[in-house]
């Protein structure tokens, strides 16, 4: 995973990933369907971004069954929170310095 000197992470260049991490930072966990509704994206699109974040160890998933329907809930890992906070701080610094 690439992080440039300013602290920006390339993983968050995509706004959907940015949105996912924003939600998981302020909520202990969030399920797939609620993420989909909150971000207004399609199943496939959301799934691929979640997969990318999970593979990089920023997000962890937990499969549950609610009323016999599969329901995966996601939460940010410690590493994910740290990288996202660094990214946020970098964004703020860039904006302030321009």
């Amino acid at each position, binding site marked *: 995973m690439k992080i440039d000197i300013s602290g920006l992470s390339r993983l968050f260049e995509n*706004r959907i990933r940015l949105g996912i991490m924003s939600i998981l930072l302020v909520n202990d966990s*969030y399920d797939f369907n609620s993420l989909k*509704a*909150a971000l207004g994206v399609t199943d496939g699109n959301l799934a691929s971004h979640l997969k990318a974040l999970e593979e990089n160890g920023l997000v962890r998933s937990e499969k549950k069954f609610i009323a016999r329907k599969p329901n995966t809930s996601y939460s940010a890992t410690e590493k994910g929170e740290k990288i996202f906070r660094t990214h946020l701080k970098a964004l703020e610094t860039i904006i302030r310095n321009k």
Partner: protein
Amino acid sequence: MDNHSDYLEDIRVIKKVMEESSRFLSLSGLAGVFAGIIALAGAALAVIFFMNGKILLRNDFFLDMSPEELLTLKINILILAVVILVLAVGLSFWLSYRNAVKKGIKIWTPVSKRLLVSLLVPLATGGFLILIFFMQNNWQLIIPSMLIFYGLALVGAGKFTYNDIFYLGLAEITTGMIAALIPAYGIILWCAGFGLLHILYGLIMYRKYER
């Protein structure tokens, strides 16, 4: 994406998504105003029909009643209370639902579920406790309990919606404590807590978030 405005847009998206996913923001201020008006109307009906137009609650008020008279009175009070509650809660839900549709916010989200649970636990606890006081004829404990448990529910719910709700909760608790100190003025304080405070906060929130 090395563009300044792109970074600004990033920050805007982050803020918006964080706020919308952790707070229920379609609570309607108008709901507060209407709930307050309904409460005042209900209290007026109670004073006129059950208390012979007297506003002060006297300890000996119920003592000279026959058991049959007391039972009829209690049933009537209960019916009035349920009607007020259903009207106020129903109208609040409906107005908030309309507000959500207007703002394009989904109503049934993880955060609205958490909001409901945090409201329902203290409200149900208080409700059952008040029912027990009611059956035991512990009149003086009922009004302070209504205000205090409602206030506690709002303080807890404040985390999941506008911050104003937290302060409304503190105000309700304070009103309830005063009602416990001076039980004779219970009806007046009930009107202040469920009537005036609702109208006041409803207007504040309407001006802040809905105009």
